[in-house]
């Protein structure tokens, strides 16, 4: 290993002065792009929080900088309430997510539960539901006065009632939809564990349960903590679910509060910027914590294991755990989908009792006719796809360039590129939107109101994920292959073109399709950047929801779900097909 490294640096040292200048130029270019995408908007956001000028009317001005605006915001009791609600909702949701995620990862990886693949798929499915769609579905199910769940309870003669328009409802929905984040971390850790320690406990006489709690879980604690922190961070930035479930009782979290501020008449952009900064600080603290926990551990999993994880024989209990998987699937996928179908096809949402639920005369296609009558519907789908494509292609190319520079070159300044490209992790989606609004709204004729501002905001927002996933794809290619090309005289670009890209293509395509799907779903950052011309699917859904017609909202949610399902399925098929054609991949 050392010998290879010194050989490599010899190759670099013998590079000409011209090559040194080129690499300097390259780094400057990347830093400039990143500065434009990430640093400039965040600085503008900071500026907005510290002044009280209205960017639309007066333009951005540095003259009235003061901390008073920020301090007034901090002292506002509504902000404190929103912050408290946010922490409680995300904390509670994370606890539930950890419980569910850990349980299912153990069931899938470490037991002999039947149909494990099916449970594994069920554990990941909730990730694909857009949060707003999930919120609408659970509002239909869990409304205290008219929800389908309560209608069912009344019919069954039971006295229980649920009320999802509450902190409990919010925590529950957060928990079940973000369990997959925890699942992915803990399942991977459980898979890579050395079982000898567990075997030692068993030999010493510990029961299966005791081994579980005293050996297994402590060993994977870093994965549990990382998953926990990640799901907390993601929940912090979600707008759709608290917007729907929190609105009827005025339960505000930071994201819905920021949005309300910009919709006030006149809008309070400065206050919104200040609150966005608060959200960013909270997120950054958690990201910092997460990095500390993960420091010293590599992201890429080691291939070619020397051991296999032990599988626990549950006997008859394995049907119980299988049942748990089915219950989760029912609750998280089937129930909300049914709710959306009922609402989308029913003429009026007044459901007297269960009999009325099955009365066919109450159903019709009128909501679907209505939404497709509006030319904006198809336009928004087209816009969403257009933005998704731009984000995937431009963002993918940029992320590849950044990833390659960080991991495969020795140029100076790549540390900075690494840091700046990872910054957006600490910036929730909604905050990215507000920052971009501030960065561009005062610039007449600028990017505001074009499809490009949306694409750029998405590229910045998803930069960290894309860089990581693209880097993984080419880091699995052994350096020898590149070095062979170098020795034969190919330059860096030639090597990338002829060696790296062809080998990494499946991973690159998979990353780009992931980026495409994320961009299409994104609501938080689009909320502030769209104009009537550039309305995208997710924003139009919110528009339908705020327009008050639950039937039309549900109908459009179904259209979106089907569209996303087709796109994700297609993406999966594309990358798997490509992966099957790949060649030399050594670990």
């Amino acid at each position, binding site marked *: 290993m050392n010998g290879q490294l010194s050989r490599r640096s010899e190759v670099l040292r013998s590079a000409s002065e011209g090559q040194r200048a080129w690499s300097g130029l390259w780094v400057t270019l990347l830093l400039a792009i990143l500065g434009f995408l990430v640093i400039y908007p965040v600085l503008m956001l900071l500026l907005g929080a510290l002044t009280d000028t209205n960017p*639309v*009317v007066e333009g951005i001005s540095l003259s009235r900088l003061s901390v008073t605006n920020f301090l007034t915001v901090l002292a506002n009791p*509504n902000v404190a309430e929103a912050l408290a609600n946010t922490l409680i909702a995300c904390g509670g949701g994370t606890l539930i997510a950890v419980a569910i995620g850990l349980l299912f990862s153990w069931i899938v990886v470490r037991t002999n539960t039947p149909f494990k693949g099916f449970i594994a798929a069920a554990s990941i499915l909730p990730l694909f539901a857009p949060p707003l769609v999930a919120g609408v579905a659970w509002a239909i199910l869990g*409304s205290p*006065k*008219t929800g389908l769940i309560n209608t069912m309870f009344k019919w069954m003669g039971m006295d229980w009632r649920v009320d999802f328009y509450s902190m409990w409802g919010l925590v529950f929905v957060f928990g079940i939809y973000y369990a997959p984040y925890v699942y992915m971390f803990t399942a991977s850790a459980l898979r890579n564990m050395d079982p000898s320690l567990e075997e030692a406990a068993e030999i010493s006489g510990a029961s299966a349960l005791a081994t579980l709690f005293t050996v297994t879980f402590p060993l994977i604690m870093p994965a549990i903590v990382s998953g926990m922190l990640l799901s907390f961070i993601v929940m912090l930035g979600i707008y759709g679910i608290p917007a729907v479930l929190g609105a*009827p009782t*005025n339960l505000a979290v930071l994201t819905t509060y920021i949005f*309300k*501020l910009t*919709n*006030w*008449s*006149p*809008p*309070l952009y400065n206050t919104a910027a200040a609150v966005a900064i608060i959200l960013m600080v909270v997120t950054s603290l958690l990201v910092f914590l997460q990095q500390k926990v993960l420091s010293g551990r590599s992201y890429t999993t080691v291939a070619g294991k020397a051991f296999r994880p032990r599988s626990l024989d549950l006997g008859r209990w394995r049907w119980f755990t299988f049942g748990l998987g089915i219950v989760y699937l029912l609750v998280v996928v089937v129930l909300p989908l049914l709710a959306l179908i009922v609402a989308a096809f029913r*003429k*009026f*949402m*007044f459901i*007297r009792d269960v009999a009325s639920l099955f009365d066919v005369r109450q159903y019709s296609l009128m909501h679907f006719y*209505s939404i497709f*009558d*509006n*030319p*904006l519907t198809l*336009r928004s789908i087209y816009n969403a796809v257009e933005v998704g494509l731009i984000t995937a292609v431009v963002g993918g190319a940029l992320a590849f360039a950044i990833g390659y520079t960080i991991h495969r070159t020795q140029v100076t300044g790549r540390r900075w590129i690494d840091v700046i490209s990872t910054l957006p992790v600490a910036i929730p989606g909604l905050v990215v939107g507000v920052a971009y609004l501030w960065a561009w*709204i005062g610039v*007449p*004729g*600028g990017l*505001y*109101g074009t499809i490009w501002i949306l694409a750029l905001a998405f590229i910045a927002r998803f930069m960290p994920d894309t860089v990581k996933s693209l880097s993984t794809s080419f880091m699995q290619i052994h350096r020898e292959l590149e070095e062979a090309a170098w020795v034969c005289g190919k330059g860096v670009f030639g090597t990338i073109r002829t060696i790296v890209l062809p080998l990494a293509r499946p991973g690159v395509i998979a990353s780009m399709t992931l980026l495409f799907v994320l961009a299409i779903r994104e609501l938080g950052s689009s909320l502030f950047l769209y*104009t*009537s*011309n550039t*309305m995208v699917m997710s924003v139009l859904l919110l*528009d339908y929801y*705020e*327009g*008050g*017609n*639950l039937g039309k909202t549900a109908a459009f949610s179904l259209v979106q779900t089907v569209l996303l399902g087709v796109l994700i399925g297609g993406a999966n098929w594309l990358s798997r097909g490509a992966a099957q054609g790949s060649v030399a991949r050594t670990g």
Partner: protein
Amino acid sequence: MTARTFTNIAAAAGIAGLALTWSGVAQAQEFGSPELIAAAKAEGKLVFYTANFAEVEQQVIKAFNKRFPEIKVEMVRAPGGQLITRVKTEAAAGKLIADVVDHSDRALMQPLADMFQDYAPPNAADYSPESQIAPQLWPRVTLVWSIAYNTELVKNPPKTWKDLTKPEYKKLTGQVIAPSGGTTWTRVMFERQVLGEDYWAKQAATSPVLYPSGAPMSDSLVRGEIAMGPLLYNAIYPKQKDGAPIQIFFPPEGAPVNPYATGIPKTAAHPNAAKLFLNWCLSKEGQTFMIKELGNLTSLKVPPAFPEGFDPKVVKVWFPKFDEYVKLQAAWIADWNKTYGYAQ
């Protein structure tokens, strides 16, 4: 056939033909000159910003398209406060793409009147001058408030505005927030000026669910989330017509009325289509459609019709005084926010 019969028939045919062409000409003049119509058809589309409810306006667009199918109307809808923000923001960024802006709050639109181009429909003289606040802005839509309740949920329904303060209706009422737009401001102004200074406090004591605009509230009423509340007639009448379990009435103390302000921005990309659309909406045909099918009123001096359930001899319509409408708005809405606990 005798010569006499032939002459009679020819005369009749001649008169009929003349009547047809004349009505054709009259009709053409009713919506605009043939050049305007041709130019509008060439433009082929227009972008329409409105604060009125989306479902309602979609029916208007459908009716317009029956007359002029070649012109596509793209509608962008937002409640009053948000719509002004959007218009101002887009105008400041030089990206106002609206061809027609239709807004509920004349007080908010008046300072922006310079943004709009000079325009008058063919039947301009038929409109009552008080409803117009600037020569460029016209009352395309005129809305009236009513009270509605869900018949499945309420066995002793309210009959007056004052009834909405009854303690037995606690947690059953809903309200659209005052800062939503011009129509809600008209309503709260009426409540305080006509029903008494303490009306707000008493009504707020029933813990109403607050809605950002009339559309979600009317949907909630049908769904059963709330049982009663004041709603614009055109927000709830279409649902009743379609069979929802709703009863609507006009309370005896009065029915507040709010005309909209509609104009064509100077930067409109499809000015001829915009003019044709507004001409149609403001014409007798357009106004009659909106009254009969949607439950609107009209600002024409002589209303061609009244909506079903609205008896002009019985209902006391109430118009705010425009100078008070402008002067009192900020302070009174702040008071309302405080009383109802709607803060930012």
